[in-house]
């Protein structure tokens, strides 16, 4: 078997007495769309922060391909090919949609400049359905449009691994459909993606496999249908009720 796109090896993150990520292991294969799920506060965002370098692991190792990335700073990890979106959407408010997306193209993994970067940004804005708003300041855009900007910015770096932190959260049902098909397309193109999500329908529709976390531990991993019917996973989501 070839080297996984990402290897997480006994990753641990401690905040004082709280162990937010407790010796978690998993792998993401090349071209895989992996779901990372778990109840609120189970450590999913912290796990993404460890991968993207926003936080340094207390212990353990994370490798992108064969290369160790744990301990490196976020900009180095971004340049090596990890791009992300944020649970609380983060756009560059004073800049146009096009320049927001160019940020990813210019400084991320792809490192383009000038017209090349602009072309990539325009293509991606069209792809997420924002070509008509390319020149508006993003502060004038709606919530879903800002989420689209964030996704386009992450894609603009042509990442080896894309991290989506509840990218579908807060969308209304019709927007959710658009969002799901957009991610599905990315998956079909062979992008390697980890998506943290509470919307189970999306996980079922999109992911091949998923990893389940609870209070910092990995409690299950595997094919989505099997994992979701695992009694321990159901207990974690529904509380300690045995008959759940």
């Amino acid at each position, binding site marked *: 078997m070839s080297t996984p796109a990402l290897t997480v090896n006994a990753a641990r993150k401690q905040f004082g007495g709280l162990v937010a990520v407790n010796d978690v292991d998993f792998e993401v294969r090349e071209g895989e769309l992996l779901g990372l799920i778990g109840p609120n506060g189970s450590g999913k965002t912290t796990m993404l922060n460890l991968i*993207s*370098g*926003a936080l340094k692991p207390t212990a353990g190792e994370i490798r992108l391909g064969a290369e160790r990335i744990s301990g490196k*700073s*976020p*900009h*180095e990890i*971004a*340049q090596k090919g990890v*791009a*992300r979106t*944020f649970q609380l959407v*983060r*756009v*560059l*408010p*004073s*800049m146009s949609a096009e*320049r927001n997306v*160019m*940020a*990813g193209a*210019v*400084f*991320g*993994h792809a*490192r383009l*400049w*000038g*017209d090349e970067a*602009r072309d990539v940004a325009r293509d991606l804005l069209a792809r997420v359905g924002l*070509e*008509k*708003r*390319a*020149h*508006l300041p993003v502060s004038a855009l709606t919530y879903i449009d800002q989420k689209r900007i964030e996704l386009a*910015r992450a894609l603009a*770096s042509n990442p080896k691994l894309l991290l989506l932190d509840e990218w579908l959260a807060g969308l209304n049902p019709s927007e959710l459909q658009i969002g799901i098909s957009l991610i599905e397309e990315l998956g079909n193109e062979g992008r390697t993606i980890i998506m943290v999500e509470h919307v189970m329908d999306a996980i079922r529709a999109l992911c091949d496999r998923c990893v389940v976390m609870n209070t910092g531990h990995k409690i299950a991993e595997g094919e989505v249908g099997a994992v979701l019917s695992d009694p321990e996973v159901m207990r974690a989501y529904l509380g300690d009720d045995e008959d759940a």
Partner: protein
Amino acid sequence: MTRLTTEEIRIGVIGAVVVALVALLPFFDNGFYLSLTVNIMLYAALCTAWTLFSGPTHYVSLATAAFFGIGTYAVGLGIDHLPFPVLVGVGAVAAALLAGIVGAATLRISGVYFVVFTLGLAELVRQLVSWSQSKFTGRMGLYVFTDIREMHILWMLLALTVVVFLTGWLINRSRLGFAMEIIGNDETVAKHSGIDTARAKILLFMISGAFIGIAGAIMAPRYAYIQPPSAFNPMISFLVVIMALLGGTKRLWGPLVGVIPFTILMDIVSSRFPNHTYIVMGIAFLAIVYLLPNGVTGRLEQLRERLRHRQPKPEAVSEEKPA
């Protein structure tokens, strides 16, 4: 990103005319007005160099006097051995190195500490220079005798200001400028997009420091006798902050709007009421912070925005046109 906009061409033409007029001044007056214009040009150069860094980063640096004094001392120490232009270069490099060290030590920490640190640094450098001068030379100052006259200083400061503007314009079109724009919007996004934010800020601080060092070197012949209290005068640091904030730091030419009236004001105050300069500075500082937090240019822009919103033009609302 490669072609000039009509706006840029217009600013370039206006700028060239102004530069030509200032450059011709020594042929009409060699006394009071020349000397006042040199002061204005000095602060124009210092404030734009300061804004190069502090505008986009919002870090308030009080290290201006340190970089300035280093430039002055480079000339003072070397004038008997090396040609003046070489010493200006030495001053620039020395100031940039100091800025690099300070930047590496402090730009990772928050803005408040940066202000205090830069103020302390300027004082420390001054004390070090005083101490080593009295220890190794036994003298209090250095003589700088050259045939550089007031008008030459004016031309050099004018050229420096032009170079600072051109540099600022080039930076804005470069990856560094784009990085700074992103950092100014959201530093977390900047890092996760692949920007080495610390490196970008340090680089910009070094460029700004180098220009301030050059200004100090250019001024050395005017002082004739250089002493640490005048070369590393903390007044310089404070005046630069006040004038730049008065003008506004969002655009590189913003500080000029503050420099001209304030230099004239300080000139009047220091000749008529020499004991009241600090009071005037203090009041001016408070007034700016409370009344004009974004400076005169920021205020004007705000008013223009408000006017535009009151009478929306029909073509301004059509968002369907990608332009």
